């Protein structure tokens, strides 16, 4: 089912783009990633709306009151929170479901790129099975031309400038930077003591390194997908006016976090 509804259509779409853009797999990955991000744009909007509604609720005095009142009774607190969500019209799945769907699509994209590269006999036999009969001319194009700029998209990327004996993983570095930027720009300033925000903060720190490690060790076609996806994600959030530049400047953030303390002091 996963192959029928996700992988096979994705592979054929990628092959169609590859044929259309003059058999350049790098350009095909970039265009395909943009296409998927555009098709799933309504999900991104829904996800942003859901998380904004959740944040508004968390700032509501009634919610904060609940947290204080039932801090020793988590079960009761959960019940009361659910009631409040209903009252305020907040759907707890509003942000989660679109994120989950997008996550599945990302996994699908990842598998598609890996399978389309087909660098070994078993992979190539498998790839031929996924090609639609209407796209049968694609069989004359496989294996795909995996060279893009200085990279072999089927291999981990390294750049050897000025005769250096060791390679610089340029793409992996760009993956780390864009993943960090994306997560920071999309994370709103946290409320003090907000556990979910603390978790996001920790994820923002670990994720770039995890993605960087994957980009360092896996085929660079996937790194290209990571970079494109990150950049398009940032642009999407910017277009929706949800980019928070304050997150990038630690000094300003500190001031913002300190502000409530100052006001408490005045009381």
């Amino acid at each position, binding site marked *: 089912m996963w192959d029928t509804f996700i992988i096979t259509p994705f592979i054929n779409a990628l092959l169609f783009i590859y044929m259309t853009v003059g058999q350049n797999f790098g350009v095909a990955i970039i265009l395909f990633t943009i296409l998927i991000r555009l098709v799933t744009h309504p999900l991104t909007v829904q996800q942003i709306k859901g998380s904004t509604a959740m944040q508004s609720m968390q700032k509501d005095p009634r919610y904060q009151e609940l947290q204080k009142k039932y801090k020793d009774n988590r079960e009761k607190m959960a019940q009361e929170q659910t009631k409040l969500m209903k009252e305020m019209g907040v759907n707890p799945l509003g942000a989660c479901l679109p994120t989950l769907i997008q996550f599945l699509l990302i*996994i699908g994209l*990842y*598998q598609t790129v*890996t399978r389309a590269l087909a660098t*070994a*006999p*078993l*992979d*190539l*036999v498998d790839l*031929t*099975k996924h090609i639609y009969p209407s796209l*049968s001319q694609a*069989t*004359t194009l*496989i*294996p795909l031309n995996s060279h893009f700029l200085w990279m072999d998209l089927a291999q981990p990327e390294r750049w050897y400038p000025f005769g250096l004996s060791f390679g610089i993983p340029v793409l992996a570095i760009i993956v780390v930077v864009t993943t960090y930027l994306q997560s920071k720009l999309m994370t709103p300033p946290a409320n003090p003591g907000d*556990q979910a925000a*603390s*978790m996001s903060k*920790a*994820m923002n720190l*670990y*994720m770039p390194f*995890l993605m960087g490690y*994957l980009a360092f060790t*896996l085929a660079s076609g996937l790194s290209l997908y990571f970079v494109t996806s990150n950049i398009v994600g940032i642009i999407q959030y910017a277009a929706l006016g949800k980019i928070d530049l304050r997150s990038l400047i630690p000094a300003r953030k500190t001031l913002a976090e300190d502000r409530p303390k100052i006001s408490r002091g005045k009381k």
Partner: protein
Amino acid sequence: MKTTFLLSALSILLISLLMSGCTGAAAPGSWPGLTVAGDTAYVAGGPQVHAVNAGNGNESFAFPTEPDAKKSYFAAPGITPDGNLIIGGFDHTVISLDPATRAVNWTFSQPNDRIIAAPVVTEERIYVASADHTLYTIDGNGGLIWSFTAGDDLWASPTVTDDQIYIGSMDHHLYALDRESGRELWKADLGAAIVGTPALSDAGTLYIGTLGKEMIAVESASGRVLWRVPTQGSIWSGPALREEVLYFGDLSGTIYALSTANGAAVWQPIKPTRSDDRLAGPIVASPLLQEDRMVFVAEASTVIALSYQGAILWNQTINGTLYTTPVMTGDRYLVALTKADQLLVALDLNGKPIWAYPPTE
């Protein structure tokens, strides 16, 4: 803070697992290569090459003795006139191994990519195609005589004659080389990747299928295309040639018999089924030709014996995926398995299992 850390660690672990699962890092990459010399079958089926007694299925030895995660072997080993094994690996090396002593005679490390195709061994020379786009000609001591570089990967073994060598490449070209010097004599663009070994007729015509769903006849003297016939699926292996008829299967699971003269169908293509009436699936391997029958293997666990008139004599279902051309030795067929608990099974002439290696519990 502790909970936060644990949740973060769990999320990252989940993503890592999903990603590593998606890469198929544990996938073998290819299917076993099978060669028989005397009463011993040599199966290159992953991290080791196994020497198995064809009579009873007992293992004689495995090379290397302990599996090495960094090494794997899938190309059918070549056998030199003095009985040494020529083993090509995914670790970019070619090894000459003395099967009597298990000693490595020499190692050829010049390739920069995997050896996917079976090495071809003649009286004095060894021809090794590598995924680094290069065909290497090596002498009996592992020394390079010449090399020829094509435009893309070489996954197919060459066809070697007294004077010339013919080899297909992923770059869509069929190349003819001078056997002595490796000089390119001609190349023919066949329009799609070539993964099989060409069959050569006595009349000097080459026959080769492509991933672009065509069987093509090419004049060996000039590289001129004589005819081309469309097929239902991509063609992986080279055709088998017998009495002016080409026999081959394709990845749509169809079996063909075409006249060498003009590519006309000798009998209508057939799509064999398993004993449970499901389709037998893609046919990757060339058939084994015998006096009165040919034996095909199809991906969906099926061995099919077919008469030369296109009648199915029997089919046998075996637990495993089948991509390797079966080998006949004595009164039995040896069939190598992919994605299975067993690596090799022996069938009698009616397709009934005799033994399996490793033995079933």
